[in-house]
């Protein structure tokens, strides 16, 4: 590209499709006979985006294609209005990337390396040093920035990785498993930082993770990939009417209770499978009439209601709907 100074404000082409920052059409990536991504069609808006899927689902491959680092086998991908592969340089000028793997030079100070990465993104030397100091302060490494990285804890290294990803003030930042290897407090504080990047710094964040809880806590939009297939792409939560549920625990026979509900025309009632504890009945789309019916049936059958919990549709529900219960691996609940 020419030496022209880039547009400093938007820094991106006007995008279509409801201001989508990422758009893919029939995106496919094969490694030999293995299909890592299969005909992915996406249109992702600005915001905090969760890229969810089990290990090996194709998340990192998708990020590498969006960064212009890997060539799709077929289909196309646009990031901030630029073709991700043929205009990879323009894309990488405007996005940040925090890889999952260890990638920091041990024999450099945080200030030196992050400043160098800012220069590598096109910032003049003086501005790069200043930005490095500012951003390291923002990620909580103010005092430690002149120490060699090899003396840092895992959490501090993750912060340096995050700092280098945002030092050039990108419009969009890809974070690949930013909580990997962190203990619970470290994970908590990393998620807070990620949340700040989106809410305070105004950058669109794509958070790739296999942990439901991380995505649910930070993101307002989720893309679920499973075995290279796009399983779901939609906002998390939705309207209460759309996703609300009523969960009832009773100390009695759930089948009889559900039959009575069905008899009153409340068809969305079912028993939730539970390995232990009291039976649980879930009723979708609860209205005032449902609450009244539950009360009346409990009185009629003389069954104590132990708990009643109303909740909106969770990410877990979305995941189950998209991928199925068998894929809801135990590690997706964030065990560290």
């Amino acid at each position, binding site marked *: 590209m020419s030496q022209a100074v880039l547009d400093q404000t938007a820094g991106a082409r006007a995008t279509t499709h409801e201001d989508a920052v990422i758009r893919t059409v029939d995106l496919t990536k094969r490694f030999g006979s293995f299909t890592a991504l299969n005909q992915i069609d996406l249109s992702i808006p600005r915001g905090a985006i969760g890229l969810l899927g089990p290990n090996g689902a194709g998340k990192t491959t998708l990020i590498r294609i969006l960064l212009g680092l890997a060539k799709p086998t077929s289909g196309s991908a646009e990031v901030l209005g630029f073709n991700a592969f043929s205009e990879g340089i323009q894309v990488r000028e405007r996005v940040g990337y925090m890889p999952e793997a*260890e*990638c920091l030079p041990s024999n450099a100070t945080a200030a*030196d390396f992050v400043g160098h990465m800012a220069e590598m993104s096109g910032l003049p030397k003086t501005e790069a040093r200043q930005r490095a100091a500012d951003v390291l302060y923002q990620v909580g490494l103010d005092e430690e920035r002149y120490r060699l990285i090899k003396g840092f804890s895992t959490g501090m290294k993750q912060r340096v990785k995050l700092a280098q990803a945002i030092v050039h003030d990108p419009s969009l930042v890809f974070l690949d498993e930013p909580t990997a290897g962190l203990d619970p407090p470290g994970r908590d504080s990393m998620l807070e930082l990620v949340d700040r990047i989106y809410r305070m710094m105004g950058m669109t964040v794509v958070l790739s993770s296999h942990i439901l809880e991380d995505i649910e806590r930070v993101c307002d939009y989720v893309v679920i990939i499973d075995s290279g297939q796009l399983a779901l792409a939609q906002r998390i939560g939705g309207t209460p009417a759309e996703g609300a549920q009523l969960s009832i625990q009773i100390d009695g026979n759930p089948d009889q209770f559900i039959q009575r509900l069905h008899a009153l025309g409340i068809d969305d009632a079912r028993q939730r499978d539970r390995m232990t504890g009291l039976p649980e009945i879930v009723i979708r789309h609860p209205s005032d009439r449902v609450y009244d019916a539950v009360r009346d049936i409990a009185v009629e059958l003389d069954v104590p209601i132990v708990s009643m919990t109303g909740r909106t549709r969770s990410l877990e529900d979305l995941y189950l709907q998209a991928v199925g219960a068998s894929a809801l691996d135990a590690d997706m609940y964030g065990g560290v």
Partner: protein
Amino acid sequence: MADSSMTTQQTPRAFGEVYDRGYQHYTGPRLGRAHAFRALTGYSMKRALGAKKRWTAKVVPVILYVAVALLVIIPLGIQGFIDAAEILQYWDFFSVAWLILGVFVATVAPEMLCGDRREKTLILYFSRPITRLDYLMSKLLATGLLTLTITLVPLAFFWLGRQLLADSPVRAMQDNLDDLFKIVIVSVVVSAYLGALGLVVSAFTSRKAIAVGVIVVAFLFSSALAGVLQEVFGNPDQKAWFALISPARTITEFVLGIWGQVNSDGAFGNPLETWIYGAAMIVIMLICCAIMYWRYVPED
């Protein structure tokens, strides 16, 4: 009066207050790919010399720079006292300083590539606005420029010193400009050649120590191999071609040829045309670049 005292009370607090400015967006210029290329070249050169590393990382480069400085300063000093004593000639420099050059390249080239591979920093570089080819060219340029500091700089200093020792320095400079031109040509070709050889070895390992060892052994072994092969297989007309196996021998013959001199040891028979040595260095350099391209550039 009351207002005035209030002002004096408030002023120190106003100056001493620390404000959290929050996050500030960057609104300055973004200079793009060429700037990133320059930044990588400069940073690689500094890091290879041990800048912003522990003092132990600076020891070897400093010793080598001191050694090569002494190599040109001592002959100049002697010549300053004894006019006729031309201990070192331009064409002798590379054969005399060969060990220093070899160790320098063996020190610098692995620093350029091995660390980025071992610590997986490559992925961060490739997520910046450069291509994989830019990365390689930047490393090649950085190695070449650093090698020039130990070839061109001391030789140019030596040339300048010799002219200043003449009775009429300005006249001497004008008369010997062709020597300076030859120094530049020879230094650029030799630096690029040695740099490419060092880098191609470094491209195959992430361990610096292994790369250093392989480069040193390859430089030494290649000379021995060339000597043995020309003894065993070379007839008098073909002997000279075996010199191309050895970087040391190739450089020596090329430099001698540029200044119109002939190697006095005659071990490889009659030398080839000078351009053949130059062309051989350039071809080997291009082969090294192709190998590095094959190693780094293919996309997933």
